[in-house]
């Protein structure tokens, strides 16, 4: 209702100098009592609540109008902390600077460095091991290839991240992969793979494919028993290994900082995008096979015995 008035006032104010802009804005606010601070009257009927909502909407529209005359950097075109979670990087677009910005090069204390990790360490500084990202990047891309390949053949992939900050990361990574993605955000129960009959029941253990085709660990140290179970059940594993871990615990190690949430989000996002591509390939091949099967008439196959 007062919005056109305000827009006119704002346009004229923008043409004037900075101080007069501030003065005219202040005058406008004082004249329009609806933009004043919401009075603390008791909210009894729904009408009172509606008035509250309208007042706040008016104030928001005032701010939005004047935002057009401010900086060109807005919420949409600047980095926000949730972008690493909701805007994953594609495997082909990953850069060293992105890994560096997420803090993937910070290892643990140099006294705790595992001797088998030395090939992946750049050196030590300020008492901690610095991880060589020149090794990390190709290993990360290799892991992405593995994920894509497994997904393209219809494999199931489990994302394991058992910290509070990793819960939403693994959930979103699994969601990106559709029916082929699974996630474990809480403690991995021992015996999930080695004691399947007791864990899931005899019917499920017999009728469904309980053992997954690939498991990705975002924090391998607390999940060492899960890694052992995967090894016993011959499940390939990918994991973010830090400087205090032997990289050979997983099949495809990614040497990086396991304590950083941003690093974990970057890596799991990248792997899940690769997985999504693999799932798309798998669906395409399935559709192609279905089309081919429906087009050609079925022929009896000849059995060749060796």
């Amino acid at each position, binding site marked *: 209702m007062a919005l056109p008035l305000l827009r006119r006032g704002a346009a004229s104010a923008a043409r004037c100098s900075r101080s007069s802009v501030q003065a005219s804005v202040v005058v406008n606010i004082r004249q329009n009592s609806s933009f004043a601070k919401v009075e603390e009257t008791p909210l009894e009927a729904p009408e009172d609540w509606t008035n509250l909502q309208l007042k706040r909407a008016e104030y928001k529209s005032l701010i939005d109008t004047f935002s057009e005359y401010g900086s060109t950097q807005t919420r949409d075109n600047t980095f926000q902390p949730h972008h690493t979670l909701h805007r994953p990087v594609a495997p082909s677009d990953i850069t060293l600077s992105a890994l560096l910005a997420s803090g993937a090069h910070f290892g643990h204390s140099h006294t705790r460095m595992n001797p088998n990790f030395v090939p992946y360490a750049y050196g030590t500084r300020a008492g901690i091991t610095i991880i060589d990202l020149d090794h990390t990047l190709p290993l990360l891309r290799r892991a992405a290839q593995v994920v894509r390949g497994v997904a393209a053949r219809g494999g199931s992939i489990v994302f394991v991240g058992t910290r509070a900050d990793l819960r939403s990361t693994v959930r979103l990574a699994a969601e990106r992969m559709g029916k082929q993605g699974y996630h474990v955000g809480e403690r991995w129960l021992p015996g999930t793979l080695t004691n399947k009959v007791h864990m899931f029941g005899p019917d499920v253990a017999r009728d469904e*494919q309980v053992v997954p085709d690939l498991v990705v660990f975002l924090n391998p140290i607390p999940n060492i028993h899960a890694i052992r179970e995967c090894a016993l059940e011959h499940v390939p594993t990918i994991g973010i290994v830090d400087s205090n871990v032997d990289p050979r615990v997983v099949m495809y190690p990614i040497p990086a900082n396991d304590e950083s949430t941003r690093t974990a989000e970057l890596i799991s996002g990248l792997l899940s995008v690769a997985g999504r591509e693999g799932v798309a390939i798998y669906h395409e091949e399935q559709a192609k096979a279905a089309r081919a099967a429906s087009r050609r008439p079925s022929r009896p196959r000849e059995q060749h015995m060796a």
Partner: protein
Amino acid sequence: MNIAKKAAGGALRFRAYATAAYVPPASMENVQRGRLPPPKPKPESPTFYTGRATYYDQLLALENASKQTRSALQQLQLLPLSRFAQQNLPPLHPVWKSQVDLAELMEAKLTTSRYRRFVSQLNQLNQYRRLAEVAGHLALAERLQRVLDMFERENKEAILARGKAKPTKFDEFGRTYTVGRRKESTARVWVIRTQLSPEEQAAASSSTTPAEPPQVQTSESPAPPPAQTVEDPIVHSAPAVGIPGFESGPLSIGPTQVKVHTTNILINNIPFTDYFPNVADRERIVRPFRVAGLIGAFNVFALVRGGGSTGQSGALTLGIAKGIAAHAPEVEPLLRKGFTSLKL
């Protein structure tokens, strides 16, 4: 020679799998050795490998609903809410399913920490539902209520009504039975509405006269409970016209034109005027009717024992007040202790 060949041939036949003959790889490509078993279906739920798929699926669904509701309420400018507005919200009384019931619902064991996490999500969703309801967004509130109904106890109303006074019941004649106690006396009181006589009923339905001002009258003869007939206490010697100068209102009606109802009070089958010779006791008993403005509306039968006259009249007062409050809930605040602004 032959024996050697035979032996060699036999040996070759028995060791057919380790044949020495060379087979080019291209010929092996179309060999059908045997069928692979059909691939087993993969697990349905994305939280299958947590071991508690049902629980985590439901928890994630609740968290999702919570997020969507929060963004909807932010769009509606209801969130974030100032402390002042929060104080204006009505209180919440949720009654969620117990840990055992919820475990049954999820077909798996439920630890206390998981139960608490689940209930905290339910409470969050309940807060959003209350906000949507109070602000008038009933469709959203109803959708949230449907989600929350799944996790509320069946006997929620019974649990919330615990500790509150039971409502007084009416029997098939429309009587209430209430009990009052004071000092050493106990009064058992039955209260029933006065019945209009057939002429009055006809007059009330057809006439357009204003409401008759009632007066307290006592009947001398003991009438059997519960039925009470109205005695006509009209004084015939008074003039039949109202006060000159008043065309409308209560003063335009003459006293002879006014029909009065009587409240008959029987105590231990004795009219209360005989039972309580003391005026103070009688006034005490009649006070609830005066305060409520319902003199002539009810008849009372009471049994009282124990104590002296003051105690018995006090016990009766309380019993009568409870009975009136049951019949006419709108006057209950007037009869509460502490309502001293009304001077009669």
